[in-house]
């Protein structure tokens, strides 16, 4: 059975939601890993869930990026293990230098919780390989520091190396080029601000739960090939 690690930092608050989706919806062997522990080598994928690690002090994700477990995550990233950061998890991956860019306060300066649409811009990552390019995903966001920023040079590079994974279908928070998710150059580390774990069950998804499920199904496919 495929093993997925859910990393828990002090202040993570979407860890249980992610664990539920991985184990109860997609029948994966999901395990929590406290930020001071190390990750076993046998793990197939790592997910950094959302929340407010260290209460978002200093800047979202910056303190958690110095946790002991990050060293293991860096090693796994190099090895090509699929790693997904959602919301605060994305912020942590950026602060840890595993993903390019920065995340700034939303243009409204407010926390924003609403349903929006993503457009798939790269369907070659472990989390998007079952999508068709430009597929639309109805999904909720919930963040205060969700405005992705990259300067012009970096934007050019991101486009060239196909590192933009998701865009919003309209301008919602002032993100550079409407970017909602990016990946590293190798494509195995993906970060996204919206919450797929809140969108895969029809009961709580007012629009359509199938598209966001494909994020997890992509992972299953990727690992299935490996096995």
């Amino acid at each position, binding site marked *: 059975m495929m093993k997925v690690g859910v990393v828990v930092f002090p202040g993570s608050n979407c860890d249980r939601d992610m664990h539920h989706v991985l184990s109860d919806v997609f029948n994966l062997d999901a395990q929590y890993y406290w930020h001071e522990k190390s990750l076993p080598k046998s793990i197939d994928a790592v997910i950094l869930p959302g929340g407010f690690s260290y209460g978002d002090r200093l800047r979202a994700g910056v303190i958690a990026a110095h946790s002991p477990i990050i060293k293991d995550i860096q090693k796994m990233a190099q090895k090509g293990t699929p790693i997904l950061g959602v919301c605060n998890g994305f912020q942590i991956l950026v602060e840890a230098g595993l993903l390019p860019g920065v995340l700034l306060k939303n243009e409204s300066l407010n926390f924003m919780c609403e349903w929006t649409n993503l457009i798939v811009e790269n369907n070659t990552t472990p989390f998007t390989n079952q999508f068709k390019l430009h597929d639309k995903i109805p999904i909720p966001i919930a963040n205060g520091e969700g405005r992705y920023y990259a300067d012009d040079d970096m934007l050019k590079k991101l486009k060239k190396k196909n590192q933009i994974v998701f865009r919003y279908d309209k301008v919602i928070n002032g993100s550079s080029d409407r970017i909602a998710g990016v990946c590293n150059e190798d494509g195995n580390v993906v970060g996204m601000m919206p919450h797929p774990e*809140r969108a895969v069950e029809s009961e709580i998804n007012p629009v359509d739960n199938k598209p966001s499920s494909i994020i997890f199904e992509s992972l299953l496919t990727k690992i299935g090939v490996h096995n």
Partner: protein
Amino acid sequence: MSLEPQELSDLKSKIGREPTSTELQIIAAEWSEHCSYKSSKKHLKMLPMTGPLVIKEKGYDSGVLDVGDGYVVTAHIESHNHPSAVEPYGGAATGVGGVIRDILSAGTRPIAIFDGLRFGNIEKDQHARWLFKNAVTGVADYGNCLGIPTIGGEVEFDDCYQNYALVDVAAIGFGKKESLIKNHVKKGDLVVLLGGSTGRDGIGGSQFASDSLESEDRSAVQIPDPFIEKLIIEAILEARNQKLIHAMKDLGGGGLSCAVSETADALDVGIEMDVEKVHTRESDMHPDEIMISESQERMLVITSKTKLKKLQAICKKFHIGCSVIGHVKSDNQMHVKKGKETFANLPTDVVANATLLDLPSKKPPYLETIEKERKLKPITDYSKLMIKLFASPNIASKIWVYGQYDHEVGIRTVTKPGHDASVLRLDNGKYLSAKIDGNPKHCYINPREGAIGCFEEACRNVVCTGAKPIGMLDHLQFGSPKDPEIFWTFLESLKGLTDFAKFFEIPCVGGKVSLYNETPAGPIKPTPIIGVLGLIDKKPSVPQKILNNDCLVIIGDTKDELGGSEYFEYVHKFIGGKCPVVDFEDSKKNMFSVLKVIGDRLVKSVHDCSKGGLAIAVSEICMTNNIGCKVHLDAVPGEKLPVDRILFSESHSRYLLALERKNLKRLENILKKNRVSFKEIGEFGGDKIQFVDSAKSIVDLSVERSQKIWLNSLKNLVLHS
């Protein structure tokens, strides 16, 4: 310090000596109105508090309801009015923190937050806007950081809250019945203070909240730290899972004084404690200060010597403070020491039980004339008037508020904010629906009927989701109880709520009284807030998308009772007239008929008719469903009334049902059989909100234009005016 001379002499005669300064501080905190309910306690007993689902255990800070299959729901409501009026961000945030710890102390995980916010006139008053904006941010920052969804609430503006703020927070918890903390302790058990450090913030906060704001004591406002609270939640739940907690209480108003004395009194034991063992954030704190500090994010846990190590290991994992400050004795004394020196040694029943008051009450004279109506200016353009109402702060969509709250985290939110009531899924396959409601405009005109109306409105909202009400929370907010006229309004509201609760067999599972809510211009209007919890046994079938040719049916009579309505107060600037009165029999019939037709899956969506009346309720359906509707005012059941009264009456017990035409006959048969007053009054379709009287057009508005104004006006008011 707020001890009355009479109370001081009571204390002396009870203990037979002069109290020490620490004892005086402890007593002043614990005997404050905020902690002791001394003015209201005798009367609160009238509310029904038991029922087949209610689980009672000594020392619980929240109500517990059995929702079947071995699971329980806990609920509580609190306010943080005085602090929020001074420092709205911190006041609102710590208000959330306090009620969350009440839920936690029963051993349940908090799963939802509701907020009720009230301020002065934000159209005219910049200070009111500042209070509003910062209170919302306070709730958002605290709740979002905890990862507990804020899934519902209400916001209201009224001149009576000028320079003031009412911030009510309700919370819901969920857990296994077997994991509930039993609150059984033994002699020799250890008393542990867990969580944030104790500082000088919030010194004497409960006394501050038991007086009018005239002598603003700003140091009494507490400082929020949601990150510590999140760690405490996880640490406590881990300790609960390992069965390390014998008893638990949160530190709220009155700080350690209150938590220690109330725990000892409720559990019929004594507690000896040493202030030197308390982890403080300042080095030179006096025992008096340590005992009454209301520093946030602290829990009192009683455990045994053998379990202490495990508890300490959990606290170490989360890097939170954990001090053994004392132990349980059998002498029923609260003994406070610093090292070897005694600073207080009082019988716990003396500390925890203030002398209750029997305050006089007298009907306020204004009530004799308030129901008389004045001649109103005729309305020439109802479409224009509707636009004005869509933009008015009380009717405008509150999306600017709940859009800042994470209402999805926890992945339970089936019905999201912006509907009548929010619905959460529970682990046993059932669904919980909840709503809080208040209406000070109605309550000012008739404290009894107004309070009943709030209760019925909260029930209606829950019923609209298909849920049967199973419990209520009340929060009674009034001015100074020492004014007999205010105390009369308090008693009237309470009696009304009691009558309704008994008639519908809805037990009160939790509540709070907040008195001394006075502004420089006088007391606030009576503001009872009622929260109602409802249970749905199977997956909710409403709301579904409304489509062209679906029909609109109204249940319930529209009556000539516009006192306290938005139409009278906002449009005509008139406070007066008869406020809506709930007919208990009709209310019950209508409620059960709505539940029946939802259960039979005959309707697509149900919406209650409340603030702004039929005109606003229909418009809300159109705006949220992106569809037009043509409504025939001459078909609306009830007495024959002029069109403005049909449009804007806020009569209770009314529901708007949207359904496919093919289900109309079956629906009518059920409603006829139940002898419910109802009528098909309109049909959905097109892109216009239309009201006609016979053939005459009264209102004709584009849905898109209405939506734009309704959705954006509150944000524009706060940010750009």
